[in-house]
Structures are given as structure tokens and as C-alpha cells.
């Protein structure tokens, strides 16, 4: 299921539950410390997405 566009915009707004985008930055920074960017895989990034959608109570959207 795709995320409805208005909801998608709301999720990425800065004020969303203390910052969905900010949490992405946190996670990407941690990933970059552990693994150089040229070794990042699709699974690394999708793993962060799944972690954060769960953290923000958005798993029901089942983004793909």
C-alpha cells in the first residue's frame, strides 16, 4: 500500500511527533559511523524505515 500523499507530507513535517525526519538523520548518522556509505544496501535503508515507522506508530501503513 502506498502512503496517501497528504499523510506522507504530514509525516515529514518537522513537528511530527518530535521529528520523523530528525530520527532519519539520527539513524543515517549511526549507519555511516558503522559502515561507509559506499557499502550501504537497500536492506540497510529499508531496515531504518521499518524501525521508524514502528517507532512512530505508522506500521499499519505498511509502506513498500
Amino acid at each position: 500500500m502506498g502512503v496517501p500523499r497528504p499523510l506522507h507530507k504530514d509525516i515529514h513535517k518537522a513537528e511530527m511527533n518530535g521529528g520523523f525526519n530528525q530520527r532519519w538523520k539520527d539513524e543515517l548518522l549511526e549507519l555511516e559511523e558503522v559502515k561507509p556509505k559506499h557499502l550501504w544496501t537497500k536492506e540497510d535503508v529499508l531496515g531504518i524505515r521499518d524501525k521508524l515507522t514502528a517507532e512512530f506508530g505508522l506500521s499499519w501503513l505498511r509502506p513498500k
Partner: protein
Amino acid sequence: MSKIWALHVPTQAGFAEASSFYESAMAGDKLPCGHPVDSPPRYQLLEWEPGGEPLGDFVAAGAWIVGQQQFLSRMSKLVHGYELGEVRYIEPLRKKGMRSPGGRRGPPRFELPYEGPPLAFISPTCTIGLLPESTVDVESTCPVCGSITYRAFRGIEKLSSRGRTPRTPNMGLFVRGQDVLGSTIFRPRFTGLTLCTDEARQAIESLKPTNLVFRDVGDAV
């Protein structure tokens, strides 16, 4: 035994921030097995985030430590083990509906050319291996060149927008004290961490930098 620290530039700290981007030219030359030579990136490619003021001594821009050249040069009189890496900026190509090289839509956030104080990133020249007692999860090891791909570092202090997670006692990263003598910055092999000795931390703090903190990540033993 003495502590080793990760240099960390906080986000949302009231200072100018940037996003870092990746392009293949940043990676080192490739080995015959396909793995790039383990080295810091050749340069950092930044795009400014909204709100460019004030500029701290350090600029949050991903894992590599970006700061004002002037401060980093001053720091090099007290701390060794690094050189100044080049910082480049993404051109403001983004007009309405046009994608930037970073792939995002929206208005330009910062007019280029950047005319503020010159920036550089800390490119560690001292690279050392982690001791086996380090609490790390390994994803893979290349049978040809020995490159290690890590999955996670467990037990190190973490700072995020959700707060601080302190280091777990007896966990984290461990290096040989003989490998990191004196006031030095170093990078554990195959990682994007910029670490320093306790002596280096004290020397850097004596310069009273703005927008830089230290995370407790392990010990030199």
C-alpha cells in the same frame, strides 16, 4: 587503561547544519576483490539546511566531523592524527519542480557560492584495528582483502534527537593503548568513526569549541 571518545556534532543545537551526500568519486580506489581501499572519503559534499546562522566551530553534517578550517588548524597544534579534508557544496539547481543532485525537491536553501568561513572535515590519517574484545556485530569479512563490514557497535554512548544513551559498562570499542599514544585523533579500520584519546579530548576542550561534544565509546587498554 584510558577512555577513548567519539567526536560528535549535535543536531538541533541552534547552529547551522547541513546534509551530506554521496557520490562514487568520494570512495577510495578499488582493490582487485572489488572492495574500495579503506580510507576516509576524498571529500564531503554538503547541502545547507534551512537557517544558516550562526555557524559554530563545527557543523552537523553526518558522521564525518566538519568544522571551520581556522578552528581545525588551531586544533592541529595540540592534536595530531588528521589532515583537513575538502568540503564541497551542492549547487543550488533546485527551482520549482526540479530535482537537485541530492534528489530532493524544493526551493534552494542557501545561495552559493558559499561565502562564509572556509570549512573542512577531519580526515583521520591514523587508522587502527579494534581489539577482539570490542562488542561489535560483524556483517561480513572479505576472504580476499580482509575488509570487515560492521553491522552495529553495541554498548557505546549514543546521542540522538530522542536523548542520550550512556555507554554500557565493559562494552564498546577497545583499542591497544600503544596504538594511540598521546594527543591523537584516529579512526578504527573500516568505520566512519572519528575517535580521540582522552588527552586529545582535553586539548580540544581547552580551545572551547562551539557545537562539539564527546561520546564515551570505549577504552584504550
